């Protein structure tokens, strides 16, 4: 990895897709306004110039139609990457994803596969209000046959996108809108981060924070503050919810005896509940020295008012407070 550059999260995803399209002519992208306009967030800027309209396909505004198209293309041998403009809109595509894409390989006894990547810009914080700001990844993680990815930085985004494209199963690739412009070191070369491999973003001995997506970044900020108080936080980023790297999480909890799960989605029924349950059911239970705590979003539609929008999901200060509580018992 000699050739490191600083790229944004957005650029890393674009580069990953472009490299795969150069490598494999079956890979193509489709979505609303992704051509000359470059997509709602400009992620596909310049791609139509390089790959042409055959492989960078603008679609009608119908998630039902375009998701059916992508699943069908995948079943017939292509490797489509479908951009859903806002992850919220995937509701309209649910039947194609849950009832078709997730089931085909199983129901045809492995005689077909559905190598589709569905890109889903999600999360709140950009002032897009209740219908454009949700974090509904837990719904997808619930369905057997789907893989769910949530990168938290540019480096991971590129490597995970490679793995998602090369995977023969449908992969839901959740991108966080607030992370698009965050920068990180990204190698120019080709590399893949296997799905199902968590990353220890910071080592610590007192508390394990398992955080997903942008919450990884907030947990790292909180860890800095807590370190000054003598509380050493270990931050684990699962990177993929399905498959989940339980071993890395459990090893960390065994070491620290205390765990906080932080996720942006509504706390009730969110994927953090799955992580917490997994820990409680494991052998590591015996090492817990405090109740497992979760920090998630409030059970409210994401407000448009920026102050309320911030208050609806965990912020750095919330994580700091929760960790102090864990240490003070």
């Amino acid at each position, binding site marked *: 990895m000699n050739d490191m550059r600083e790229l944004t999260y957005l650029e890393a995803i674009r580069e990953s897709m472009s490299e795969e399209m150069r490598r494999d002519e079956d890979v193509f992208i489709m979505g609303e306004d992704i051509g000359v306009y470059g997509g709602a967030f400009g992620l596909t800027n310049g791609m139509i110039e390089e790959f042409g309209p055959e492989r960078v396909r603008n679609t009608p505004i119908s998630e039902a139609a375009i998701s059916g198209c992508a699943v069908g293309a995948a079943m017939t041998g292509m490797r489509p990457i479908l951009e859903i403009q806002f992850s919220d809109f995937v509701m309209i595509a649910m039947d194609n994803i849950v009832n078709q894409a997730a089931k085909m390989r199983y129901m045809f006894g492995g005689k077909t596969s559905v190598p589709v990547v569905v890109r889903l810009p999600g999360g709140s914080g950009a002032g897009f209000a209740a219908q454009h700001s949700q974090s509904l990844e837990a719904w997808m993680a619930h369905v057997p046959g789907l893989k769910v990815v949530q990168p938290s930085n540019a480096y991971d985004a590129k490597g995970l996108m490679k793995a998602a494209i090369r995977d023969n199963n449908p992969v839901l690739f959740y991108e966080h809108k607030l992370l698009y412009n965050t920068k990180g070191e990204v190698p120019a070369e080709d590399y893949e981060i296997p799905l199902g491999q968590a990353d220890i973003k910071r080592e610590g001995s007192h508390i394990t924070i398992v955080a997903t997506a942008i919450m990884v970044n907030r947990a790292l900020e909180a860890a800095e503050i807590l370190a000054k108080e003598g509380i050493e936080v270990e931050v684990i980023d699962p990177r993929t919810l399905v498959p989940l790297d339980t071993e890395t999480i459990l090893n960390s909890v065994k070491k620290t*005896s205390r765990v906080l799960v932080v996720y942006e989605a509504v706390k009730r029924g969110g994927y953090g509940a799955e992580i917490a349950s997994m820990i409680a059911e494991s052998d590591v239970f*015996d*090492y*817990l*020295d*405090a109740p497992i705590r979760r920090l998630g979003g409030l059970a409210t539609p994401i407000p448009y008012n920026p102050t309320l929008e911030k208050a609806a999901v965990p912020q750095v200060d919330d994580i700091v407070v929760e960790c102090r509580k864990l240490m003070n*018992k």
Partner: protein
Amino acid sequence: MATEVVMPKLGATMEEGTIVSWLVPVGEVVEEGDPIAEIQTDKIVIEIEAETTGVLLKTVHDAGNTVKVHEVIAYMGEEGESLDGLAVTSPTGSESVDQQQETTVEAAPVTSAQAGDKIRRTPAARKLAEENRVNLQEVVGSGSKGRIHKVDVESFLAQNAKRITPLAKKIADDQGMDYKQIDGTGVRGKVMKQDVIIPPTDSGQTPEVENKRVPFRGMRKVIADRMAESAYTAPHVTLYSEIDMTNCVSLRQDLLPVIEKIEGQRISFNEIIIKATAFTLKQHPNMNVSLEGNEIVFHSDINVGMAVAVPDGLVVPVLRNVDQKGLAELTAESKKIGKQAREGKLAPDDMQGSTFTISNLGMYAIDGFTPIINLPNAAILGVGRIQKKPVVVNDEMVIRSMMTLSLSFDHRIIDGAPAAAFLTALKDALENPLTLMI
């Protein structure tokens, strides 16, 4: 109804007290007036007595904790009574404790399994407790609503399973020292060698002016226990006799250069007195005795303990078979063990096996005193200073070097007449030191 036991205010200036020890375990029945805890203030150590007859339901603070006056330190009540409704103070703050969960004390340990299910504890605490066979009912939880965390079990283990190195244990056992009372300086309170041996001399220190508070433990505690045991179990009688040391003074003058040439040490009166005492003990074997259980032991050896002041206390190294040794040898030996004592280099064996003890305060302006017997010895000789005084000899007033000896004896095994005979014989020996040559 459970009642609170609070840290008493024992004086107008007392603001806090330290719990030295709990004298009864939680769950024990105590009678009204029974001591339940020892409390140390800045002045004294005092026992707290139970105000009512009942069961010690819960202790809020562990031994060693310092607690503000009027703060609750324990709860008393009926057997099996729960502390529902009481605002139970936990050591980390004042929170109301969900009583069902943890402070109900079962009268009999038989029911502890059932009660154990109700204890609030983390999985890690439970696991550690199981591994170390700790009954969680005895552990005070520091967490929310009294929840027992791993650290609580760890500190319980540290307090209860006294950790001690094998060497330290041997030294402590040899000295009859109760190492459980010692706060070790090792990891997690482990008692190390230096915790049980005499601290090395650190001379040249100026006395502290402010009110220094020092833990009552180690050598101080050992001295205290021994002195108290002796003073309260052995009925002491002290006899005084004034000795004319004039002959000893001239004897010492004559011997000084001789012994210095042989041993390189200067003989002092102490050695002459030790020699004379051993000489007299040989003639009075009924003084060289000790009480051991149901028997009075008449010792065949004459081993004289020599009280030596050390910076924070007092040790008694032993000179063995003194009756068989000459003054030169005695001088060398007593200088050697005196030095070792002051430097904290005595081995436990050096302090074992005395049959009689001499405490010499002659270097101070002390004429006489009532020494406390060094058990299991039956007697101790106190030596005062030598001072020139006008005395009457053959109806004439003359100046003589006079010294007072005080002999304390244990009246359980020695009567007044033989003790008086011994002291008289010792006086004769010292006044006519040539008899020591015979």
